[in-house]
C-alpha cells in the first residue's frame, strides 16, 4: 500500500538513494546528505507550523510502500521510500527566483511588407514568492501505474486543505529537454557563454549554492530567440521525456503552460489558479467508519485533515454515502482519530 506523508529523518537514506539514482533533474533537491538533512528539518518545521518558517514553508513529502500485511510489520527506521515531492510556499524561498519570460515583439515594416514576430526572453523575478510544486522524483519501477499520480496530486489535496499557506496561483517548473549525454541544447546556446561551464556543473552549483552566482553570471539584457541555435529554439518550453508523464498529469489537472521558461534548460513552467485545479475543486470532506465489509466502489484519494501528520492513500469507496466505509488498515495508515473527517477526491 502506498502512503504519502511528510518526510522525516528516518527517510534520509531512502531519499538520498532516490535522488542520486534519479534520471530526472532535481534542481530543488540536492544530493548532498547534509543539505538533504537540512531540507527535511525545514520541512518538519513547516509541517509543525513553526513561526520561524511561516510564509516560506518548504514542505517535503515522501511516498512509502507499506507492506500489505499492515502497519505492524513496518520497520519505521528503514522505510521503503519510493518517491519524494515538495511544495515551496514561496518560490525562491526568500531569494530571487529566476525565470525567462518569453514575450513577442513585432518587427514590421509597411514599406517592405515585412511583419516579423520576434520572440524575446526577458530575465524576470516576477514569480518570486509564488507557491510552487517542486522536487518530484519517483523510483523507476513505480513510474507506471498510480504512484506518480498519487504522489503529485496528494500535494494538491494538501494545498486544498491548507490554502492559507499558499498563494492563489501556483507554478511548477518542468525539466527541459536534454541530450543523451546530459547536455542541454538550450544551455549550450545561452548560459554556457556566460558561465563558461557545462550544464551539469551549472545545475550542480544551482542546487548547492545560493542564487548569488546566477545574479552575477546571468546576462541581464533580453535575449532574441532567433539568435539562439535551432536546437536551442526547438527545445524551448518542451518537457524532458522523463518528466513528460508528470507534465501530462498536471495539464489534465488544470495547469497551463505559461510564458515562463527555466533559465538553464529552457524547460516549461506550468501555472494555475488554485480555483481552476481539478483536485481542489472536486475534493470533499466526509465522515468515515472503519469497516471490514467495504463495498467495492471507485478509486479515490483519501487524506486525513491534519497538517502535521498529513497522510494520503488510495482507496476504493462509495463517495455518495455521507459516511464512507474504510478498511481498518487504511484507517491506520491515515492515522485517523475517531472523529476526524477525511478529504476524498476521485482518482
Amino acid at each position, binding site marked *: 500500500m502506498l502512503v504519502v506523508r511528510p518526510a522525516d529523518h528516518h527517510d534520509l537514506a531512502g531519499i538520498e538513494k532516490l535522488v542520486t539514482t534519479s534520471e530526472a533533474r532535481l534542481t530543488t533537491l540536492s544530493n548532498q546528505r547534509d543539505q538533504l538533512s537540512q531540507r527535511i528539518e525545514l520541512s518538519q518545521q513547516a509541517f509543525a507550523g513553526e513561526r520561524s518558517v511561516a510564509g516560506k514553508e518548504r514542505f517535503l513529502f515522501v511516498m512509502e510502500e507499506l507492506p500489505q500485511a499492515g502497519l505492524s510489520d513496518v520497520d519505521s527506521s528503514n522505510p521503503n521510500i519510493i518517491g519524494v515531492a515538495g511544495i515551496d510556499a514561496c518560490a525562491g524561498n526568500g531569494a530571487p527566483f529566476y525565470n525567462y519570460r518569453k514575450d513577442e515583439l513585432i*518587427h*514590421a*515594416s509597411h*514599406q*517592405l511588407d*515585412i511583419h*516579423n514576430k*520576434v520572440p*524575446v526572453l526577458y530575465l524576470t523575478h516576477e514569480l518570486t514568492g509564488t507557491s510552487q510544486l517542486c522536487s518530484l522524483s519517483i523510483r523507476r519501477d513505480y513510474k507506471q501505474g498510480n504512484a506518480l499520480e498519487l504522489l503529485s496530486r496528494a500535494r494538491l489535496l494538501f494545498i486544498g486543505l491548507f490554502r492559507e499557506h499558499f498563494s492563489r496561483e501556483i507554478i511548477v517548473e518542468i525539466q527541459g529537454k536534454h541530450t543523451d549525454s546530459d547536455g542541454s541544447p538550450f544551455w549550450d*546556446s545561452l548560459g554556457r*557563454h*556566460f*558561465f*563558461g*561551464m557545462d550544464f551539469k556543473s551549472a545545475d550542480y*552549483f544551482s542546487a548547492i*549554492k545560493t542564487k*548569488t*552566482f546566477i545574479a*552575477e*553570471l*546571468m*546576462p541581464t*539584457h*533580453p*535575449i*532574441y530567440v*532567433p*539568435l*539562439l541555435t535551432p536546437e536551442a529554439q526547438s527545445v524551448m518550453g518542451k518537457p524532458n521525456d522523463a518528466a513528460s508523464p508528470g507534465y501530462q498529469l498536471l495539464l489534465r489537472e488544470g495547469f497551463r503552460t505559461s510564458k515562463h521558461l527555466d533559465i538553464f534548460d529552457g524547460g516549461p513552467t506550468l501555472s494555475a489558479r488554485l480555483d481552476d485545479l481539478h483536485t481542489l475543486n472536486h475534493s470533499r470532506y466526509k465522515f468515515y467508519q472503519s469497516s471490514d465489509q467495504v463495498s467495492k466502489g471507485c478509486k479515490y484519494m483519501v487524506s486525513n485533515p491534519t497538517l502535521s501528520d498529513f497522510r494520503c492513500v488510495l482507496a476504493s469507496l462509495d463517495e455518495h454515502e455521507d459516511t464512507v466505509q474504510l478498511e481498518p488498515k487504511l484507517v491506520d495508515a491515515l492515522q485517523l482519530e475517531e472523529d476526524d473527517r477525511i478529504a476524498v477526491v476521485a482518482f
Partner: protein
Amino acid sequence: MIIIRPIETKDLPDLLNMAKNAGSGLTTLPANEALLLEKIESSVASFNQNTEQNHRFYMFALEDTEAGRIAGVCGIEAAVGLTDVWYNYRVSTTVNASSELGIHKQTPTLYLTNDMTGCSELCSLFLDADYRKGNNGRLLSKCRFLFLAQFPHLFHQKVFAEMRGYSDERGVSPFWESLGRKFFSLDFTHADYLTGTGNKSFIAELMPKYPIYLPFLSQEAQDTVGKTHDNTRPALAMLKSEGFNFNGLVDIFDAGPLVEAFVDNIRAVRQSRLVSVEVGCAPEFDETDRDPLIVANTHYLDSRTGLISKQALVGKRLLISKSQASSLKLKTGDQVRILSLRESVNLKSTHK
C-alpha cells in the same frame, strides 16, 4: 589633367555608369538614376548654400579633363542623423564574474547607438576601375581634407568614415547572415540598396533594439566584426595614417569599422598650408611622380584640386603652367592650399 571639382548635373550619365559597375557595398551610391540625380542636385544646392548648413551634402567628382569624363566621386555629409536616425553598433564589453566560483567572463556586446549624430561623414568614395592607378585614389580621398581645412566652419569638429565590411567572394556578409537577416528577412544587398536610397525608416522598424551578445552570432560573424572588406583595406590604412581611429563603432549591416577623427587632428589638415601661385614657367608634372603635392584653390563654388610636382614649390611660391592655372582656376597671386600627397613625407623638409 586629373582634377577634383564639385559635381555638376551634366555628370549624371557618367555617375550612373560608375554606380552600375560598383555593385553592392557602396551604400551611398546605388545604381538608381533618379536617386543619383537627387544626390547631384543636393550637392549643387549645398554648394550654392541653398540648403540649411546641417543638411548639406558636398559631392566632388574626379574629372579627366582630356577624356572629358568623370571617373570617380567622393563626398562629405555636413552632418548625419539630423533628419533621419543614424545607427551604429558599439562593440562594448560585458563582464560577468563570480568570485565564489572563480569565474570571470568577458562578453563582447553590441549596443545600438546614435553616437555619430551631428558629425560630418566622409562618404561616397568611388573610383572607376580604369582609374585605380597612380595617385588617383589618394587624390580623390584626400582632396576632402583640404576642403575641410579651408572651410572648417561648414562641418562638425568630428568627421568619420564608414568602411565597407567583410563579405566573401559571393558578396555574402557573415555578419548579416547571422544577425540582420533574422530580423529583416532580406538579402544584404537589398537592405544595403534600400539604405542607399534613403529609405531608412525600415531600419528603425526592423532592427533589434536590445544589446546583442556577440557569442550568439556564428563564429564567422564574430570574426568579421570591425573587419573591413579586402578591397577597402588600403583606404582604411590611409585614414588611419591620417589620424583616424577605430573606437568600437561598426556598421549595423555588415559590421564594417567606423573610423573617426577631430578635424584639427587630421594630419592633412594640420600639415596643409597656404602659398601663393605664380603662373608662368613651371616644371612638367609627370603622372608617375609618386610624391607630388596636392594643390587646392581656396575658392568655394569653383573649388578645384589637382596634383603638382614638388619641384614647383619654391619658397612660399608655387609655380604653375598656364594650362594648370586654367584647370585649377588660378591666376598669379591667388592663394592655394598645398599638402604632400604621401603622409610619410613632411612638407617642411622640402622647403628650399
